[in-house]
Structures are given as C-alpha cells and as structure tokens.
C-alpha cells in the first residue's frame, strides 16, 4: 500500500512541478526582450536550450533580486529534468525530442527575461545612488 501511495504521489509531484514551472515561464514569455539583452545573449526571436547555461552565467554576474531566487532555482531544476528526459526517454519516444527542445528554449527565454529585469534593477539602484 505504501509503495503504491509513494509511486502515485511521486507521479503527481512530477506533474504538478512541471505545470508549476510552465506557469512561471508562461508569465514571462509574453514580455519582449530589450535590444541590449538580445545583443548580450545573442538570442534573436526564439531562444534555444543550448543558450541556457550561458544566460545563467550572465545572470550570475548581475546583482540578485531576492524575490527571483526561488523561481530561478525551480526553472533550473526543470531544465535539468528536461535534459534528463531528452537524453533518456526521448530516444524511446521520438515525439519527446521536439517537446523537450521547445521547453528548453522557453526556459532560456525565461532566464533572458530575468536577466533583462536584473539589468534594469541594477540600473535603477545605480541611479538612486548617484541621486543620493
């Protein structure tokens, strides 16, 4: 009985986690990237999963906003999960390859939008310091 409950709960956890991450991404996907971030990240209109690590590195260079920490960790974990699916299950179910590639691209776009916000935040902080 405990084993059954464990597997059911783990499956539900996975499904809720994926939907939650997608809801976080969905909120940012409508926001256009600034020209500055497009130049820095090299992302034109659609982002690819291969750029994710580079955008995260750029994110680490900017001062962190405390309210974003949890979301970036969640998306990072989601991206790793997608990588895992892409390198294992996608070999058995080819339809998953397209899906994971699209999702990984959206994770990258989410990270780029966050980078955009961080740059704007840093700029505001600098302006406030100069004014003071």
């Amino acid at each position: 009985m405990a084993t059954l409950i464990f597997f059911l709960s783990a499956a539900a956890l996975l499904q809720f986690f994926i939907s939650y991450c997608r809801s976080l991404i969905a909120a940012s996907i409508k926001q256009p990237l600034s020209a500055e971030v497009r130049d820095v990240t090299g992302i034109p209109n659609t982002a690819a999963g291969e750029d994710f690590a580079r955008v995260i590195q750029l994110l680490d260079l900017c001062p962190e906003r405390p309210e974003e920490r949890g979301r970036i960790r969640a998306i990072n974990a989601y991206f790793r999960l997608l990588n895992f699916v892409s390198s294992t299950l996608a070999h058995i179910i080819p339809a998953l390859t397209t899906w994971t590639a699209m999702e990984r691209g959206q994770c990258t776009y989410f990270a780029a939008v966050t980078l955009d916000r961080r740059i704007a935040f840093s700029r505001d902080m600098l302006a406030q310091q100069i004014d003071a």
Partner: protein
Amino acid sequence: MPGSIEYTIWFLASLLELCVVVCALARHSFRRYLCLNLYMLLSLLVSLGRYQVLSHYGLRSSEYKYFYFYSDAVLTIFLYLALITLYLYVFDEMKVEKYLRLTALLLLVGTALFSYGVVQQSSSVQQSSNRMLTSFFFELSQNLYFVGLVLTYVLWGAILKLRETRTQLIQLVLSLGIYFSAFAATFALGNMFPNLQSLGYVLPVFGCLLPLAWAYAFLRLSHDARMAPARLAVVPR
C-alpha cells in the same frame, strides 16, 4: 534538542509564513484568500507554540510529542479546509457551494473513521488511550495529506476543463499540489523504510516550499493577471 540546521529551517519556514500574510495584506488579497492566510497565521502560531513547549519540556518529552502531533493534525485539517475554499473559488459560478461543503465534510469524517479503524486494528489491548489518540492524529494527518493530494489533482483537472484563467489562483493550486504530493510521497517512503534518517530534514524543507510559492503568488501576481491554463498541462489539450 534539534541542531542548528533544524532551527534554521524552522525559523526560515516561520519567516516565510509571516511573509505570506504580509504580502497578502500589502496586495489586498488577505480577505480574498482568507482561509489560506488564516492557515499561514495558524501555522506561525503553532511554530511559536512548539518552540515554547520544546524549550520548556525538551524534544523527548511526552508533552512535546502530544503537542506536536495534535497541532499537526489541526494544521492538516485547516489546510484541507483551505483547499476546499479553492474549490469554492473555481466552482463559484456553478452555484454548487452547498454540495461542495457537504462532500468535503463527509470526506473528512470518512478519513477520520478510516484512520481510527487503522489505529484500532494495529493497537494492542494494553495501549493507553493517550497513546492511541496520538497514533490516531498521526494517522489522520498522513491520510489527509493523501486525500488532499487526490483532491488537488481533481481540482487541477477541473481548472483545465473549465479553462480557469486566474494566474494567481492557478499558482496557488499548483503549489498546494506540489506540497501535498511531496508530503504524501515522503510519508509513504517513511512507511516503506522506517529507518531512513534523512527524511527528518526533507519534511521541514518541503514545509518551506508552500509559503515561498504563496508569498510569490501574492506579491508578484496581480489578482487580474490571466493565462491560458491549457498550455500548462503536461499532456497537450
């Protein structure tokens, strides 16, 4: 006594619970999600109470054990009621409030009776009534987490089916689903491997996730924000 890591996680969880209430008040969502906020307040008060009892009587005292299990059962029942209020929001326009309340009550009573049956079956004749009551509350909490998980799953299905678009509500439900399923899975794992020590750390960490997600939902998402829930489904609709 708990170590510094346990105290840090405990403090962090209490701080996050306070954050939820403050964020809800600041964004005028306190009354809209009254039951969710009351649960967070109650959880904060229980944390303070547990700390008082722990510092007075110690970790291994029966007073702390009783207080811990009774308060945990009360908190779980309250969270169950908070979940039912989310049902009421989603089914608001269908005017089925009366039926939802009745079903929720019957389900709660059914879970309590089932838990009592399990405890009575596994307890020996010599077991004291106090000990049996503690076992009952522990069993009730565990079972309510699983019932909560099933109900959240059904609610998520209803959200997708009814094309509910309120982003804040969607994120509150999804984070509650993560919380219930993480707890239910951890409890099940604990039953499968009773000697697994690391579970002692996992549960309090999971306890931080719900207030963190709710604080984010209240602080960053406006009540009017909308999204298409169909694109959140794991299986495309």
